[in-house]
């Protein structure tokens, strides 16, 4: 097939037609380019689909976990009904299961841990984000804080058992409550340490991202550094800071090993923050292997379902709060 056209046949009056190089060589090159661009489009599509599929996979996985939890909880839901949620007795011998002590234990220990950790994570975030973003000391501090997240939780458990428990016991002796050392308060302390990096890291990068002209404008108006942080940096980053705190809370709710080693593991209702208690994750980890009755096993799985739902609810509330922050 000869597609070549005589170039001399094209006159100036034919412009805006482009002079096309139509030697066989050039045409072959053009064909290759067309081919390549088709391939590029295909690659583009495949890539996009891969992303979509991977994204969907995660959604399906989460839904699948939820479905598994619901199906496996059915025997317990049928046997115990809604009483499961506010029952205060957890008795595998008589097959009576009430999750309230563990629900309370989870919520109290996590929120207490959050309250303890916020001042520390905020301080780290502001110091690293605003005061000293560069230098060997900030780098060292930043890496140390991030290392906290990398340490396996069982090591925190050991540390808490060996170091925190005696300290808390002497504290309890001095304020005159029953001096056991293990309990909700101790587990909150170790949780607080464990969750600091999440809020601190996110907070630091958020504060670093505050546009410098905002801060410079504030300085220009005579604001002090504290006033800049309070009135410019923090309001600008509050949704990010809150997201970090939410991430911390999620970590605290699900933590198992470190908590189970120091919380005292009792099914009694917690009477104070110094009393021993138990969390949902810890009960599952403790009792799952030896759950020898169908309803018992199912009740433990239902505990997982409740924990799942609690996490979802807290996240939804958190998202709502973040949205309101951002709309302001």
């Amino acid at each position, binding site marked *: 097939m000869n597609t070549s056209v005589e170039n001399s046949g094209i006159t100036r009056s034919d412009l805006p037609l482009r002079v096309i190089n139509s030697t066989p060589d050039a045409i072959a090159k053009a064909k290759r380019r067309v081919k390549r661009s088709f391939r590029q489009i295909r690659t583009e599509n495949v890539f996009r689909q891969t992303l979509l599929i991977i994204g969907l996979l995660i959604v399906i996985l989460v839904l699948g976990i939820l479905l598994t939890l619901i199906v496996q909880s059915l025997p317990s839901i049928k046997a115990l009904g809604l009483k499961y949620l506010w029952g205060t007795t957890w008795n595998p011998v008589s097959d009576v299961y009430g999750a309230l002590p563990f629900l309370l234990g989870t919520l109290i220990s996590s929120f207490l841990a959050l309250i303890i950790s916020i001042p520390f994570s905020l301080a780290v975030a502001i110091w690293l984000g605003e005061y000293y973003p560069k230098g060997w000391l900030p780098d060292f501090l930043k890496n140390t804080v991030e290392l906290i997240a990398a340490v396996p939780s069982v090591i925190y458990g050991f540390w808490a058992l060996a170091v925190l428990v005696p300290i808390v016991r002497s504290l309890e002796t001095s304020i005159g409550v029953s001096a056991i050392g293990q309990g909700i308060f101790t587990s909150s302390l170790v949780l607080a340490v464990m969750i600091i990096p999440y809020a601190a890291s996110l907070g630091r990068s958020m504060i670093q991202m505050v546009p410098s002209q905002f801060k410079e404008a504030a300085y220009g108006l005579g604001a002090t550094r504290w006033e800049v942080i309070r009135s410019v940096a923090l309001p600008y980053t509050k949704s990010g800071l809150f997201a970090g705190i939410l991430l911390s809370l999620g970590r605290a709710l699900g933590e198992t090993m470190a908590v189970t080693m120091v919380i005292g593991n009792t099914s009694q209702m917690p009477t104070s923050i110094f009393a021993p208690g138990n969390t949902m994750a810890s009960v599952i980890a403790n009792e799952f292997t030896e*759950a020898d009755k169908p309803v018992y096993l199912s009740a433990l799985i239902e505990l997982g379902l409740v924990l799942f739902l609690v996490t979802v609810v807290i996240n939804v509330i958190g998202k709502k709060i973040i949205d309101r922050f951002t709309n302001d």
Partner: protein
Amino acid sequence: MKKNLLSLRSTLTVAALVLGSMVTAFSLVSCGGGGTSGADSTASGGDALLGAGSSFDYPLFSKQFDVYNQANGLKVNYQSVGSGAGISQLTAKTVDFGASDAVMNGKQDSALSSPAIHIPITCGAVALSYNLPDVKDTLNLTPDIIAGMFLGTITKWNDPKIAAVNKGVKLPSTAILIAHRSDGSGTTNIFTTYLSKVSSDWSTKVGKGSAVDWPTGIGGKGSEGVAGTIKQTPGAIGYVEMSYAIQNKMPYARVQNKAGNFITPTIASVTAAANVQIPPDSKVSLTNTDAPDGYPISGFSWVIIYKEQNYNGRSLDRATKLLKLLSWMIHDGQQYSAALNYAPLSPAAVNVADAILKTATYDGKPIL
């Protein structure tokens, strides 16, 4: 448009695949969790015998299986997953034998597709360990005191009841802190079975099981968790496996047995506890033994197998190997017990175990 349809279709295909694999995984989970649906991927493949269950038995089994492998060239793969999980795996027929510190309960029994037999394999005991830094003598405890402490009715170490059986010991006024297991365990089962036998209060208020609703005290995960609490807290008392207490040089109490003698938990006193009349199916709790020199908080640990060994296409060869191994374990294998702080089976127990092994069949014919 067409492209969109195409991408939607491929997405759906992948989604269906994922859903399918999830359903598979999900049904596997339901089997492992003690379900009755039969996963037929049995232990018939491979040369090694498979076992799962009690973590209490694990150190002894490791030693025994190693020696047996060197002598007979038979590998045994034992997973120390806990008694309940071992029974679940036997129910799902994924192992050749299960090992448990408690006999199977009615619900577990009814989940089995065919009857199982229990073979006593070793004895264990539960020691009561305490932390009283100023008390150098070994404490004496009566069943009444132990039940009182664990029910929360005896709260101080200088309680008159404790003082009455520990004359000459200067008891502090420290508060008693109970340490118990937080994870379900055979140790808890032996201990609560004992308490239910000796105290009617305990039996009605708490009961027995591998996990119970403890009226007081704090829970530690595993023997090491309980031991940690005891070591750290002055005034604490808790129960741990005897072998664990001996190995870790923890102080433990003498316990008064049915005959009225105060007995220290030792290998000898636990073996003695098992030297009593044992029923032909061996399903007996040794707690509160009649033996005058027996330690009262003792119990058997059992290996559980199906009575009819021809299931899921298992070969006669495999069944014979299993039975020979178990027979070796209750006879020659017992010599490795003492060094590992296990109590060897009493002669009475070996006789019963022998008789039980002989009831195992393949196609209705005895194997041994």
